[in-house]
């Protein structure tokens, strides 16, 4: 009997403390119920910027100044190379993927893009016209 009363008290104490601890916390989810489907984020169009984005520092992977929603990068193909490869960049008037993209981990220079650089969007991101979620004062290095 005594044991079950202690357990009951402990449980009640846990409930009281945990709920008061949560009271001041604001969730990113907002007041949405846990089981409700998440709100869909705004679908924004990818930007097209002629001449490209200015880089914020010297060896930054440049941001992608065009849409890439129709490109495919997977095990079978990489369609970025239609324009950015050593074979095609002149005809397509696109910048060639930097020389660093043709070097393997041992420093050997390759004929085609190194597999380390195969998944372009691991480093290069397209941009959308979106307000920053958090205010910031970042200024790129010049």
């Amino acid at each position, binding site marked *: 009997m005594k044991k079950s009363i202690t357990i009951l008290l402990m449980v009640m104490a846990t409930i009281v403390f945990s709920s008061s601890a949560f009271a001041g916390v604001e969730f990113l989810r907002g007041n949405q119920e846990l089981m409700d489907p998440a709100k869909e984020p705004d679908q924004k169009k990818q930007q*097209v910027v002629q001449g490209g984005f200015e880089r914020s520092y010297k060896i930054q992977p440049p941001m992608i100044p065009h849409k890439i929603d*129709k490109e495919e990068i997977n095990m*079978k*193909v990489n*369609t970025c190379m239609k324009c950015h490869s050593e074979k095609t960049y002149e*005809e397509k*008037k696109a910048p060639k993927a930097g020389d660093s993209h043709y070097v393997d981990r041992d420093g050997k220079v390759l004929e085609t893009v190194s597999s380390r650089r195969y998944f372009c969007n691991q480093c290069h991101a397209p941009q959308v016209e979106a307000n920053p979620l958090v205010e910031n004062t970042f200024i790129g290095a010049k």
Partner: protein
Amino acid sequence: MTKVVKRGVFGTLVIGIILGIILWGGFNTAMEWTNTESFCISCHEMEENVYQELKETIHFTNRTGVRATCPDCHVPKEWVHKIVRKIQASNELYHKVLGTIDTPEKFEAKRLELANNVWRAMKKTDSRECRNCHKFVSMDLDKQDSRSADAHDPHYWEAVDGNSPTKTCIDCHKGIAHSLPAGYDPAADATNEG
């Protein structure tokens, strides 16, 4: 001519016309029935592979609500070309029976060959089926992104001036409705386009 013979000739004619309408109509109806998306994807080979990929693309859903279904791109609209394509399809039936591509693995292994067949046909017809909807003379290049407008510009003028095209839609727009095959090299292909 006697009355009886006259009546006989007239009767044969009427029966002939009616039969003609029924047979011809029936033939065309049957052919149109094979020209529907639901017919195409009644084969799991199409439903499980290429159809699932199509569903992710702009030809399936888009802001204007116009959809291109399988036959819009893969079956010619003109009657003679359509019949020729339908006769070629007997080869597809044959391989359906053989089960040549009846698993995703088999399909993947053959994808490059199959895609090359479609690309070759489209190149030969100057992308006829694309042009059922997309015509250079109705394109407003100013409304396109700069990269697209630059690429289209010379070919736009070829079309407007009535010169023979140096490039056709499929030269640049491969893999827009289905995923590209392994073994296809976009860079090598782009240089072949000339």
